[in-house]
C-alpha cells in the first residue's frame, strides 16, 4: 500500500500531463480558447463526495468511457445540459445560442468530447508511461448530476469505500461553460501508481 503523499504526487503528475493534452485537443475541437484546470486530485470517501454532489441542483449530460488494457480506468466527462447546447454550436461553427433545445447534436457533442478527451488521456499513458489503454465507445446519459456521478462510482468501484479521483474543470473563453472530467483508476490503482512513481 502506498502512502498518501506518494499517491497524491502520482495522481497529480498523471492529471497534469493528461489535462495539458486534453486542453489542447479540446480548444482545437471547439475552435475557441479553452483552459482545463485540475480542480483537485484526491482520495475521496464515496459518501462525502456524493453528499457534496447531491447538494448541487444541476441537470447534466455525461459521457462514460472505459479505458481498458494493461490497467483499467473509468472516465466521465459531464457538462450542464444548457452548456451542451453551446458546445454543439461551437463544434458545428454556428453562432452560439443557435441550439435552443437539448437535441441529438448536443448529446453527440458531449459524446464526442468524451471520446476525444479519453483518447487524449490514453495517449498520454501510452507515450509517457508505456501503458496501453483503449477507450470504449462513450455511453451518453442526461440526468441529475447526482445520478450521473453515482452511476460512475457504482460502475467503477462498487467494492471500495474510497476512490482516487482526478477532477478537473473546463473554462471556455467568452462562454462561461463549466465542464467536469473525472478519471478513476480501478482495482490495480496501487500497481499503476507504483509504476508511475518509478518512472518519475
Amino acid at each position: 500500500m502506498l502512502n498518501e503523499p506518494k499517491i497524491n504526487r502520482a495522481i497529480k503528475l498523471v492529471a497534469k500531463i493528461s489535462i495539458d493534452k486534453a486542453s489542447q485537443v479540446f480548444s482545437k475541437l471547439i475552435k475557441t480558447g479553452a483552459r482545463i484546470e485540475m480542480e483537485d486530485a484526491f482520495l475521496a470517501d464515496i459518501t462525502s463526495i456524493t453528499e457534496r454532489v447531491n447538494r448541487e441542483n444541476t441537470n447534466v449530460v455525461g459521457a462514460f468511457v472505459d479505458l481498458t488494457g494493461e490497467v483499467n480506468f473509468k472516465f466521465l466527462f459531464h457538462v450542464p445540459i444548457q452548456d451542451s447546447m453551446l458546445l454543439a454550436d461551437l463544434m458545428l461553427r454556428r453562432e452560439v445560442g443557435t441550439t435552443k433545445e437539448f437535441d441529438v447534436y448536443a448529446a453527440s457533442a458531449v459524446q464526442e468530447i468524451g471520446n476525444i478527451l479519453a483518447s487524449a488521456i490514453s495517449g498520454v499513458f501510452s507515450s509517457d508511461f508505456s501503458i496501453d489503454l483503449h477507450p470504449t465507445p462513450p455511453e451518453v446519459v442526461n440526468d441529475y448530476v447526482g445520478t450521473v456521478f453515482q452511476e460512475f462510482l457504482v460502475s467503477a468501484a462498487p467494492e471500495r469505500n474510497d476512490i482516487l479521483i482526478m477532477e478537473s474543470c473546463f473554462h471556455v473563453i467568452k462562454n462561461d461553460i463549466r465542464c467536469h472530467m473525472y478519471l478513476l483508476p480501478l482495482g490495480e490503482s496501487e500497481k499503476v501508481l507504483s509504476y508511475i512513481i518509478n518512472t518519475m
Partner: protein
Amino acid sequence: MSKKIIVVDDAPIIRSMLKDILVQAGYEVTAECNNGKEAVELFRELRPDLLTMDIVMPEKDGIEAIHDILAIDGKAKIIMVTAVDQRVALMKAIRAGAVDYIIKPFESDRVLSAVRSALGE
C-alpha cells in the same frame, strides 16, 4: 458528376461536421451511418467512391468494417477518422487497407486534402 461518399461515425455531430465540409466542397454524401455493420451493408448497396470511417464504434468497429468492405471490393477507398493518439488502432486500420487517416479534432483543409488525394484528384 460529383463523387459519392458515405460517412461512418457513431457521433451524429461528427457526421454533420464532415458532411458540411464535403458538401460545401462539391461532393455528394449519399449516406451516413453510425456503425461498421451498417457501413458494410450501405457499401454493398451504394458502391460509393469513398468512405470516411471512425474506428471506435459499437456493434462492428471501423477495422472490422474495412476487412469486410475490402472483401467485397478490393479497390474500395476508405479514410479513417479517429480521435487523437489512437496510434495502435490507426496502424491496424492502415494495415487492413485504409488509404489515409484524419485525426479528430480535424480542420476542413485536412479533410479535403485527404479526400482529394484518395480520389486521385
